[in-house]
């Protein structure tokens, strides 16, 4: 679901980024008001969960791959506005350091995965939770909400891909950017996400939520006290297990839909879209989570360690730099 560089026209990228600017502004304001300063570092751990869940590639029908995002999970734990910030920062680290998702398409990717996904997921979760009571009801609500939210985000990405050939094409009718129209992009994206990736998102969300509720109930905004040492050990153990298991994501070979290289795309459609040929490319430090000549699985683990550590450090530093708010309770 990470839209790469040059698949969207520069004007589409500009509009989606402009649309996200007030969202980010509002999210920062709401996080400063709603999330206590001592809980800010936990957002880094939540971002690490998002980052790792996006590394588990799952084979989808049609030979492509997909992944979970865990945006609904973060929205349930810390609120939807915190989820906007958390998923945006995780996407930024993926784009800048690992070349996963384009820099120009960063606004579009954030619109889909950091705004639409957590907002839809959290709204559905609160709606369902009113009718489904108890601990089991919470998990069922989280599962349904996360499944539908991922599909909503996939639909948004499919629409962004699909409008490109209609809006941007040359005199011969050849697309300048993404060559697949809505009639192809929407079914292709939704088929994989409705059948497999949505269930993976629900599985990740419910699994991690159940684990956190039983072993680390203070991880989130429901309890005011800071996580104890035992809680921290449980959370970091879960992160370590996920890092160790992330090479499983390499078992799914093939690219995600809409994330092919230019050569592969040219072979598929029979021509090279003019706007994509010679377009701007960001040279990431560790492209595609691969580290030089290291075996793919080792490179994947090393990338996961670097990504998770960076996210934890970014949010801990942000928490330390945030101005303390006096409490008059």
């Amino acid at each position: 679901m990470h839209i790469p560089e040059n698949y969207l026209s520069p004007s589409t990228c500009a509009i989606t980024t402009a649309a996200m600017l007030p969202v980010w502004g509002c999210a920062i304001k709401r996080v400063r008001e709603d999330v206590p300063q001592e809980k800010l570092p936990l957002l880094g751990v939540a971002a690490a969960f998002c980052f790792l869940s996006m590394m588990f590639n799952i084979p989808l029908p049609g030979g492509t791959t997909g992944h979970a995002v865990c945006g609904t999970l973060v929205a349930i734990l810390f609120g939807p506005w915190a989820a906007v910030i958390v998923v945006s920062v995780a996407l930024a680290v993926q784009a800048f350091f690992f070349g996963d998702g384009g820099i120009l398409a960063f606004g579009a990717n954030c619109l889909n995965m950091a705004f639409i996904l957590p907002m839809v997921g959290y709204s559905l979760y609160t709606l369902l939770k009113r009718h489904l009571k108890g601990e089991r009801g919470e998990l069922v609500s989280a599962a349904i909400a996360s499944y539908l939210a991922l599909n909503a985000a996939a639909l948004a990405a499919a629409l962004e891909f699909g409008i490109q050939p209609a809006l941007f094409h040359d005199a011969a009718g050849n697309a300048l950017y993404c060559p697949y129209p809505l009639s192809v992009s929407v079914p292709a994206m939704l088929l994989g996400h409705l059948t497999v990736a949505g269930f993976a998102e629900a599985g990740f969300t419910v699994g991690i939520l159940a684990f956190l509720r039983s072993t680390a109930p203070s991880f989130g905004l429901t309890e005011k006290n800071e996580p104890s040492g035992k809680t921290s050990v449980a959370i970091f153990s879960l992160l370590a297990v996920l890092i160790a298991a992330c090479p499983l994501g390499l078992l799914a070979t093939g690219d995600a839909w809409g994330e092919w290289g230019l050569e592969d795309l040219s072979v598929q459609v029979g021509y090279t879209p003019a706007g994509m040929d010679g377009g701007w490319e960001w040279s990431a430090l560790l492209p595609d989570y691969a580290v030089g000549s290291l075996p793919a699985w080792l490179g994947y683990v090393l990338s996961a360690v670097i990504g998770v550590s960076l996210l934890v450090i970014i949010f801990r530093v942000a928490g330390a730099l945030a101005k303390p708010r006096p409490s008059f309770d």
Partner: protein
Amino acid sequence: MPKLEKQGQLPSWLTQEEHYQPTNDRDGFIARSALSISSALARLRLDGGAETPLSPSAPVKLLLALACLLLVSLARNYLFVLIVLAGVLVRACLLPRAALLRVVTTSLSAALLALVIMLPAILLGQPHSALGIAGKTLTCSGIAMETALSTPPAELTGALRKLGMPNVLIMTLDLTLKSIVRLGEVALEALSALRLRSVGRNQHKDLSMGGIGGVVLLKAAEAAQQTHDAMRCRGFTGSYDMPHSWRPRAIDLVWLCLLAVLLAIFCYLQGLIAP
């Protein structure tokens, strides 16, 4: 002696009304110096590292840090720097908040400075060499800061002796570490005194810096001499003897094994041994 007009009256010079208005002076120079010394002192007093069961003992930690610094500096393969950087980032995640801030700000500043110095390389079409140097600087600064912040000074001097450093070097370091905070306070007091005594416009404040420096130097010499005398009175013969009972712990052996693995990776990536 002033001449009195009559017995019991005030002297004439005392009865005259004063119209002296000292001109306003900018004391930003003193304030900035005082502030920077205060912040440096606050940083020196920082006790960043709480020892965990997984921490190696101080000599092993110092050995690990020195080996990592050497290997990162010698590495021609950027992959090795990335592997060490991953370890540095993981350690930074576990530091207390204040220590983490210092590691991040210092390391990033050093890396940025390296990038600026290497700017001509980027302009001449060699961005990789500039990024390589900046990455190495970031990693090395991170290693040095994390080691310094997570090891108490007394353990650091003990570790240096264990690694065979000369006694004179350790004594100099020991005395410096012990008296640097006190000397900072002396400098701060001297600056406050200068600020209080500086009435009116003073165009030559920089000349006073020499005085403050001199006072601090004299105090430093005095403090070092007194500390050294006190140490001799308590039986110090000039040599730092380590207790023979020190033995590596089990966790130290694990860390040394990790260092051996790192060395093997370094040799492999440098092409010193066949794959």
